[in-house]
């Protein structure tokens, strides 16, 4: 589905962050490498914080006179992140997490460019794109 309004983009973003939060919560139950448990918990908390900040910033920045139609942003390009299962190995969990972060980094970059008419939120998306890139780098350093 094409995301054509600011509120549609925001709603989809919050859904993606909900998925991220749940993903890392579920990942902490993997007992094979308990030292990554804290890392996953941190990522889950970061996701919750991003969601709170997004909601607050959007609420404080939306301006009826600046709203513009959006084109070229499709939900399907950013869904389909792998789900976790109990049978997954630690390596598989890490691979799934890296894929998630790659997808989310791309989403924040792409969506941020589309909502430039609400600059405060657009800047937040740019920051979160960088944040997800850092998370990806951390995950790539784990084995």
């Amino acid at each position, binding site marked *: *589905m094409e*995301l*054509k*309004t*600011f*509120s*549609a983009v*925001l*709603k989809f973003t919050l859904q993606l962050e909900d998925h991220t939060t749940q993903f890392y919560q579920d990942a902490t139950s993997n007992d094979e490498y308990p030292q990554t448990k804290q890392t996953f918990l941190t990522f889950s908390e970061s996701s919750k914080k991003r969601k709170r900040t997004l909601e607050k910033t959007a*609420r*404080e*920045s*939306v*301006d*009826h*006179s*600046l*709203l*513009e*139609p959006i*084109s070229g942003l499709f939900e399907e390009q950013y869904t389909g992140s792998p789900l976790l299962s109990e049978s997954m190995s630690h390596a598989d969990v890490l691979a799934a997490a890296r894929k998630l972060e790659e997808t989310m980094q791309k989403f924040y970059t792409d969506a941020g460019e589309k909502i430039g*008419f609400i600059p405060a939120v657009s800047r937040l998306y740019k920051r979160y794109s960088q944040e997800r890139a850092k998370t990806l780098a951390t995950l790539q350093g784990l084995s």
Partner: protein
Amino acid sequence: MVQTTRTQERRTGVPTIENYINGHWVESKSTRTLEVVNPATTEVLAQVPVSTKEEVEEAIQYAIGAFEEWRENPPLTRARYMFTLKNLMEEHFEEVSRILVQEHGKTIDEARGEVRRAIECVEHAAGIPTLMMGYNAETIAPGMDEECILQPLGVFCCLPPSNFPAMIPFWFLPYAVACGNTYIVKPSSEVPLSMNKMFELIDEADFPPGVINLVNGTREVADVLLESKDLKGVSFVGSTPVARYVYAKATSTGKRAQCQGGAKNFLVVMPDAPLDKIMPAIMNSVYGCAGQRCLAGANIVAIGDIYEPLKQKLVEAAKSIKVGNGLDESVQMGPLRSKQAKEKVLSYIETGMKEGAKLILDGRNIKVEGHENGYFIGPTIFDQADPKMKIGSEEIFGPVMCIMRAKNLDEVLQMIHQNPHGNAASIFTQSGKLAREFKHRVQAGDVGINLGIAAPVALFPFSGWKESFFGDLHGQGFDAINFFTERKVVVSRWF
């Protein structure tokens, strides 16, 4: 549900909203009510009473009674009420936005944007300790000093329109009350629910009884307020004929008045305008809130060779706008406010065709799945329109665009100035020289440079010229402070 005439006896099963007078919610004694209808679904949301003359006069007396004590509060104390109100508005932001969508029809994005602007006015008014400072000069003569102080006057009221029911009262109310006046709001009887919710927040903010009051009803209620010799001023926003009426009636009884009227706004596209970049702004300007804004773009004037590519892009962009129920986040344009509003716009489209303009995008027969009875009209475009045609000169207040042509800036400025309205005008260009010239010469109060909706933020007055405004001082900004206070000049000396 089949809608009959709006005025009818009270019915059970549909809530009837109340007035808020002297710090209490009060059921109106009137037996006359009107239906509040969701324009997307035609569901009856509530009933609103047509308050009695006695109830309005009672509200006025309570507001007068509350004034003396309220004005004695230091400005900083009054500012603290504004901080409390702002926090409550933030807390209930989404709730108010959703009520607004259901009573008006605008999209959820537009509703949130409206509520945000209302909050910004409260935030600005919270600066009243500084905003209301006077000035002085020492030794204007030997041993004599002179000072100018700003003082509140008494009771003011506002008569807001149906297109921004949550925001427009806040162009006036927070400034009036922060200055030390007391206040009465009479919302539009078509869309009273979001203001009803705002008053729940005002009640929760615990303003002293009588400081801020709400009376519901129609023109009859407005007339009681306008005729009252006890009110000091009136703020109105609506159509030009009614603005003229309100201004004349208010000032004839010695009141201050600020009356914002209608509009017919021109968007000028110069040959150097980057079409892909400006298209979203033009779409928002013309079709945002289904064209029901006094700042909405109506006449798109192409200068020179840009006409053909502009026209093509306008049609392409307008065709892709998704119309539907505003609660659906994917919807980009909601319905017209009411059945009457829809019929009026349809009538203008018919007129436009008879006048010889070419209908190149016809939004009349749009079908919205699941909302077959809703008051929808799709984006509509006339080409070869003329500013002398009715569709080119009168406010349609719907999603109808008229494309026109002009040879140069001089010609388009002549077109703009011949229109009796002067609310807003925009130019799209990459030339600073042309933009400056446009800004300097255009006879309009709200000017956009590469913007389709030049909506002033709370710090600035919401301007309007010619028949778009009657009065001297506008809402918002320093104009509001000056409207809601009087100057007292004191010359003193001591023995």
